[in-house]
């Protein structure tokens, strides 16, 4: 019933999908923590960061992709590459989302912990680095899990820019094989096989660590 | 006239036998107090008598009718058995007044006007009428518990069951609730109370019932139970309870 060649063709889209997702997650991670900490520690920077977060929470990521690709591609050469452009747009949005996740996690850490660290003579930065962030990271794990699976799903927007990821492969296969059912359904299954274990694993890992360290 | 009774009541949770055969009855106008160490099955017994869960074995009688034997509408009987919980369990989205009104309107099908009138009267009885428009979260534990009593009382039940109504309250708050309960006992309301407030039992109970390990160990009028209990187990438990006061 299922042509193994069709399946193989679809599977060729998986690496690109995972690459977009993990690269943009990396960008988001690199942006998210400093922004969360900066918003916590410096009120003046806060406004700028807040504007950035609000922009990415209030405008579709597809509009950003189109804006970067067609609008800025002329000035910024690397945005002319659809793959890079998708990674940048998703990565910037992920930074906004992850900063929110880390901010929530930092706020959930008991205020006494900061006091205790300061009472030992640590600076505020040291207290953040050695006491608050390690705890916040554990609390943030389930949120990070959902963020990765969100990125895997939203990497499909790159299909609209023509990136050869999983959805694009399914679309090509639909046109080539004239089969309207298999390509898309199989693609959905492959996406679920990618999103489900990752989100689940981080969720379980997070709650195990939370119990271990008695965090809420 | 017998209001509530049970025969051969057993309750088993998994491997754990919580009630091991209980015979009990309470008549109209009586106040009975159940005491006993924690884990003795008092609360389970009370919940079964309140028809909040079924027994594993045995019969529950309400006004002479076998509750689970005949094909009776359990909800209509529950409406006639008031229940006051340890944690007041007020409906958190409703004000004190609305909490008391809900059962009147939904179960007894009173009009809004009737229900308001009845609820206000009852809140006055528990001295909570001035707090009618406050939400549970805005009331103290003792105030919440008095609203809980009013919610049960307003239904004009034939009996009210109290499951350690003061156990989670501070001492001062305990008094305001106990005062209201004494009031009700004096008005002739039939009450079955699980509590460790021995003063309450002494003053208003017709009978004290001691439970231990899922059985009724001994029961009798307060004077006799408190001064000269017959069983060794009762002497020991009451000795500790009274000694601690």
């Amino acid at each position, binding site marked *: 019933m299922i042509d193994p060649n069709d399946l193989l063709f679809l599977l060729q889209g998986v690496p690109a999908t995972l690459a977009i997702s993990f690269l943009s997650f990396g960008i988001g991670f690199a942006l998210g923590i400093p922004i969360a900490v900066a918003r916590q520690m410096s009120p003046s920077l806060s406004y700028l960061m807040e504007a950035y977060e609000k922009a990415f929470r209030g405008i579709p990521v597809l509009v950003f992709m189109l804006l970067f690709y067609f609008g800025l591609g002329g000035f910024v050469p690397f945005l002319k590459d659809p793959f890079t452009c998708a990674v940048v747009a998703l990565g910037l949005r992920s930074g906004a989302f992850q900063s929110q996740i880390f901010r929530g996690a930092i706020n959930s850490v008991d205020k006494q912990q900061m006091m205790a660290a300061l009472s030992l003579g640590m600076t505020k930065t040291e207290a953040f680095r050695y006491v608050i962030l390690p705890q916040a990271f554990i609390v943030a794990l389930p949120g990070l899990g959902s963020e990765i699976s969100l990125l895997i799903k939203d990497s499909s927007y790159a299909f609209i820019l023509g990136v050869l990821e999983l959805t694009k492969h399914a679309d090509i296969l639909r046109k080539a094989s004239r089969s309207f059912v298999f390509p*898309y359904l199989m693609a959905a299954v492959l996406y*679920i096989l990618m999103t489900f274990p990752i989100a689940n694993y981080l969720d379980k890992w997070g709650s195990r660590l939370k119990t271990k360290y008695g965090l809420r | 006239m017998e209001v509530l009774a049970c025969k051969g009541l057993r309750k088993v949770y998994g491997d754990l036998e919580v009630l091991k055969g209980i015979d009990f009855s309470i008549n109209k106008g009586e106040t009975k107090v159940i005491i006993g160490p924690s884990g003795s099955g008092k609360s389970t017994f009370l919940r079964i008598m309140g028809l909040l869960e079924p027994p594993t074995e045995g019969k529950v009688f309400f006004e002479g009718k076998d509750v689970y034997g005949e094909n009776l509408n359990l909800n209509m009987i529950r409406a006639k058995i008031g229940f006051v919980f340890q944690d007041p*369990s007020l*409906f958190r989205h409703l004000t004190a007044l609305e909490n008391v009104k809900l059962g009147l309107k939904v179960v007894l099908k009173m009009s809004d006007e009737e229900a308001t009138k009845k609820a206000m009267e009852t809140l006055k009885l528990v001295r909570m009428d001035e707090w009618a428009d406050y939400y549970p979260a805005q009331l103290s534990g003792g105030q919440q518990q008095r609203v809980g009593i009013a919610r049960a009382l307003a239904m004009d039940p034939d009996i009210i069951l109290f499951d350690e109504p003061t156990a989670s309250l501070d001492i001062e708050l305990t008094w305001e609730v106990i005062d209201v309960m004494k009031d009700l006992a004096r008005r002739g309301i039939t009450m079955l109370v699980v509590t460790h407030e021995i003063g309450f039992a002494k003053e208003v109970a017709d009978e004290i019932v001691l439970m231990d390990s899922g059985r009724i160990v001994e029961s009798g009028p307060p004077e006799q139970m408190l001064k000269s209990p017959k069983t060794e187990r009762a002497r020991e438990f009451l000795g500790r309870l009274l000694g601690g006061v």
Partner: protein
Amino acid sequence: MYFILEYSQFIIEGFYVTVTMTLVGLAGGVVLGVLSALGDVYGGKLLKIIINSYVEFFRGSPLIVQLLIFYYSIPAITGVKWDALTAGSLTLMLNSGAYQKGYFKGAIEAVFKDQLIAAKSLGMTFPQTLRHVVLPQALRIVIPPWTNEYVSLGLSTSALIVIGIRELTNVAVSISAQTFRPLEVYLFIGLIYFVWITLSLKVLDWVYNKVKIPGLAVSEVM
């Protein structure tokens, strides 16, 4: 940027489609979300399995793929022909229902068991308890997290472009192609989304403050 005003008719039509599709998806999603949450909390084993497979499918795969399935695959399997708007609405409803189920389930579970027992002790039936105790509490608790779903579905409607629906992003693509001024066009369209979402959040916040009750919020419950 005045050239964009020449296309205001287009933009307004696109915006109308975007808002309508969002509201249709949310409304259908509320119904599906509440029903599946109730089924998952109070239902039997089989029902739970069915509900969770539905949720897993729609939460685990991209909306774009779901849209393609509803536009191409389902008509091919069933032989029932429908237009893009129907396929799009159905997909958005089912997709949103799967996410909303999570929010409603959390809120229903936040209505503690003691509330159900208290209702039982008054002689209330299960449907009466649902209507007078569980839903009034759960619906209030759910508003703040539910707000996220409004925003995320609203922005996700841009995916409707893949089945050719003329929503706001699709309109932007056409204008950009006609005018060769993508920078201004996408910035302007982005601004429309931004203002719409921001205002919606303000309205939802106002509604929440209207109906909220002391002691009844997610943070105070959990």
